[in-house]
């Protein structure tokens, strides 16, 4: 048995360490631990701030999924204050959310994940002529053709199309060769390029992958152009409580939004759709197919056992989340929990997730058995986030010192993440979880009137199952499935942006240019005390923000974020979270070079700053937050 430590895990957001125990004879991972190694304390910083500023602060949890936390906060504050945003603001925010998810997924696959699959060293062995031919094969065999909702047809022909000429690949190959020969490998330095996993794909796929790595590096910025039009910048665009700051006027040449600005947004969305249809989805599917054909259907772990989602994309403005209105008119109804999907559709069980579950202390709670915290007076218990008492208890590692770790202590405390639970059990969240939930709900007849988004998802799953020649319950809950569903979802998000752009145009055409409801802008109009929840399906999974407003200030702020669900340490029964389970469901060929471990962890798109900002280092009690007036009020 060999214990292998990987720290730092790179090509992720933030600071993550994993340790695995590998049986050298079989390659089986007997035990795995995942540790968030940094804590920033942003909730404490939120206290006593103006709730109208909240989005700007909490957006800085993460600059990779920028906007996700801003939207979570805006939804929570607007829920608390009883604000319904105007139609245009709903459409604009959904455009920004859609393209953000696409951009985030693109960066993840091409720039954070790709170098686990393809290697510049292998790319040198490729034949440029064969690579060009392969590009054509990829486009003819691995495209997933979807029909978006009826929309303005504003593009004459696809502007972004993969290049399939030998000379292009020769040039890319020459650049790679120059870098390798220069001895300054830069970003390509020190990877395990001699690992056998880099032999799974033929050299031509490596060259194609490296070429698209570079192309997407330069193209991804165009996906979020609408953030710059509507929010003034990216990362971290600007919003306002009550809607959007970008007034619309066709009568003013200095207006933030007019026809020319909308044309820029439209161009960017069309580009985004091209990039999904002709680059991202076919690339992932071609690579995934080769992996699956060679028997790589491992790395599923928790996805086979339990997945969770909250649902998203309000079709029209809603009056609140805690009153249940948010869930009434969603395009992407992945709210719910699916258990045992890995055992097949018949054995899979579905549990609904409703607004009232948010305030039930038995439904969502967190434990700290293996986190660097303690619950004085409630040892061994799991506490609802509203009851969350967080007291730091940094114990250091098993071997080494507090400031120089050798190995962490899997029997004791080992992470700055808590362990969130749904009804006492851990769950996986993310695009794969959302796809499993939609698929199960529709197949089991729980959704009988699928929206166009849900129909598109079903069409995609069917198309991919045909290409892979495997049932969804076999290919989906795997490392490849986690990566593939993210690509499929990016394609959906691109069409979502187009859909809301159409709605925006239609609404402006009808004479409505309102982007903000400022009737409750003045704190004098607010109740003395109120509470709210904002739900959001972030790129990495189900996100919830919780706010208490008292005397015009934030009295308490909490967030349960996707990476905490996925990267959490084990629970008090010794059961593992999603990262740990996935690692234990992965075979390692060379224990000293655990590329497979890095690949499966990165298949979650780790975002550690998101997951580790939650906790109170000073051991202060975090106040109880509740959205249910009948349960209890805000108190210590």
């Amino acid at each position, binding site marked *: 048995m060999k214990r292998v430590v990987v720290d730092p895990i790179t090509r992720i957001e933030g600071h993550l360490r994993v340790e695995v125990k590998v049986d050298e004879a079989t390659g089986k991972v007997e035990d795995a631990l995942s540790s968030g190694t940094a*804590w920033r304390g942003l909730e404490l910083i939120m206290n006593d701030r103006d709730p*109208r500023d909240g989005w700007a602060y909490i957006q800085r949890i993460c*600059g990779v999924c920028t906007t996700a936390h801003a939207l979570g906060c805006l939804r929570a504050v607007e829920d608390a204050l009883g604000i319904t945003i105007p139609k245009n603001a709903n459409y604009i925010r959904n455009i920004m959310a859609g393209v953000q998810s696409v951009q985030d997924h693109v960066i993840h696959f091409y720039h954070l994940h790709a170098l686990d699959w393809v290697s510049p060293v292998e790319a040198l062995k490729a034949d440029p002529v064969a690579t060009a031919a392969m590009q054509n094969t990829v486009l003819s065999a691995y495209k997933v053709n979807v029909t978006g909702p009826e929309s303005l047809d504003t593009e004459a022909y696809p502007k972004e199309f993969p290049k399939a000429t030998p000379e292009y690949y020769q040039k890319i190959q020459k650049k790679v060769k120059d870098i390798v020969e220069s001895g300054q490998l830069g970003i390509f330095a020190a990877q395990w390029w001699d690992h056998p996993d880099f032999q799974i794909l033929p050299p031509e796929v490596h060259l194609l992958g490296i070429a698209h790595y570079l192309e997407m590096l330069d193209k991804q910025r165009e996906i979020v152009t609408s953030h710059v039009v509507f929010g003034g910048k990216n990362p971290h665009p600007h919003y306002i409580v009550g*809607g959007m*700051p970008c007034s619309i006027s066709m009568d003013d040449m200095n207006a933030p939004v007019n026809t020319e600005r909308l044309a820029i947004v439209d161009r960017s969305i069309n580009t985004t759709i091209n990039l999904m249809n002709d680059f991202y989805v076919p690339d992932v599917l071609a690579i995934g197919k080769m992996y699956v054909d060679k028997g790589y259907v491992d790395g599923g772990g928790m996805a086979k056992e339990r997945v969770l989602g909250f649902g998203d994309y309000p079709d029209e403005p809603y009056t609140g989340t805690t009153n249940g209105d948010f869930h009434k008119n969603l395009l992407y109804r992945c709210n719910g929990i699916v258990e045992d999907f890995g055992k097949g559709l018949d054995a899979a069980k579905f549990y609904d997730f409703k607004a009232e579950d948010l305030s039930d202390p038995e439904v969502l709670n967190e434990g700290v058995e293996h986190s660097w915290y303690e619950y004085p007076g409630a040892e061994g218990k799991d506490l609802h986030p509203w009851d969350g008492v967080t007291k730091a208890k*940094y114990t250091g590692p098993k071997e080494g010192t507090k400031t120089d770790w050798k190995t962490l202590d899997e029997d004791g405390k080992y992470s700055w993440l808590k362990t969130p639970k749904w009804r006492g059990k851990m769950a996986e969240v993310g695009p794969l979880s959302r796809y499993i939930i939609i698929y199960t709900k529709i197949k089991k007849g729980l959704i009988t009137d699928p929206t166009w988004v849900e129909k598109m998802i079903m069409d995609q799953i069917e198309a991919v199952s045909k290409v892979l020649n495997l049932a969804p319950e076999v290919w989906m809950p795997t490392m490849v499935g986690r990566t593939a569903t993210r690509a499929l979802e990016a394609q959906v998000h691109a069409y979502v942006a187009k859909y809301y752009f159409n709605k925006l145009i239609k609404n402006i055409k009808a004479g409505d240019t309102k982007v903000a409801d400022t009737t409750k802008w003045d704190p004098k109009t607010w109740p003395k005390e109120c509470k709210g929840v904002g739900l959001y399906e972030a790129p990495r999974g189900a996100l919830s923000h919780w706010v208490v407003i008292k005397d015009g200030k934030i009295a308490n702020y909490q967030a349960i974020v996707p990476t905490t669900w996925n990267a959490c340490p084990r629970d008090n029964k010794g059961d593992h979270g999603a990262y740990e389970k996935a690692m234990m469901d992965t075979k390692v060929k060379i224990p000293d070079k655990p590329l497979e471990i890095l690949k499966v962890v990165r298949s979650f798109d780790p975002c550690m*700053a998101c997951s580790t900002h939650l906790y109170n*280092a000073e051991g202060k009690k975090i106040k109880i937050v509740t959205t249910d007036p009948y349960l209890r009020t805000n108190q210590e």
Partner: protein
Amino acid sequence: MDKLETMWDVCLRKNIKRRSFLKSCAALTSIMGLNMDMLSKVVAAAEKNPLPVVIWLHGHECTGCDESFLRSATPLTSDLVLNSIALEYSHALSAAAGEPFEEHLHQTMQQYAGKYILAVEGAVATAENGIYCMTGGKPFVSVLKEVAKNAAVIIEYGACATSGGIQAAKPNPTGSVSVREIVGNSKPIVKVPGCPPIPEVMTGVVMHYALFGKLPPLDNEGRPKQFYGNRIHDTCYRRPFFDTGMFAENFDDAGSKAGWCLYKLGCRGPVTYNSCGNLRWWNGLSYPIQSGHGCIGCSNDHFWDEDPFYKRLPEYGPILGDVDKIGAAAVGLTTAGVALHGAMSVVQKKKRQAAEEKSDGKKVE
């Protein structure tokens, strides 16, 4: 900064024998994950002049600065990272991870001792001996000190590195501070503030070095003058509305639609030095003010504690003088052709002031 020495130059200077030099090359070849048949190429490369080497460290941050760096259009990030610099260590982009990656860091630090550019994104957590930010099993603060020791120059990228950023806002639970507070002023530090900085500002600093072989001219705070030389207010396309007293009073009102000055909605443009007004984001496409939201002053030190962001400026930060009078005076100086327009603006402004006094019960200075 001097011209970078080749690895062979270093060996000659240190009187290291050819045999040892070849041995180092062999070690390097293996560390880079290359086959030994690449050794001759590595030897040849080590005798040539290398690209400027960049080591990029991450402290307490949100990775928004990496993301901003990637959004650069001119130079495109691919061109910069593959042709102009050798980005040898980056948690965001580097292929490698874990032990071999840390070994590569140490190898790079040795080989380019005194020559490499250290870019730091993120604040330095100092509370409890730095245990709130651990990387590679060690506190980030100790990693930073070690890597900074032999850096030729340090670039502080973003608000976290330049002043502690959001985690340093009250009550600063992790004791987060800027990079400068840890490494002192022993070597040149380029301060590139912003949350995040504009993409082309981030790449521009490195591009300047790649093009001209030296750091861009800096102001007395260490900020590149070409990017932080003016206040946003001085370059804002809405400045004429400020000067003539035409303000948006509420979000989405007629003034907001007309694109008038956002000063009364809390804009920090008058006290913020940044390129938002001239370079703008996405090569001139927009910036927060153009999109209808006031500047939040994200390139100012400790701006997170200068909230609430929607309160107009004179109550916060440095006093500008009576800005309303500045506007009126400017109107008085204009030529007769625009005087009429100016006079109307003054009337409008007075009306608004009266309304404001009524609603607020006080006159804002």
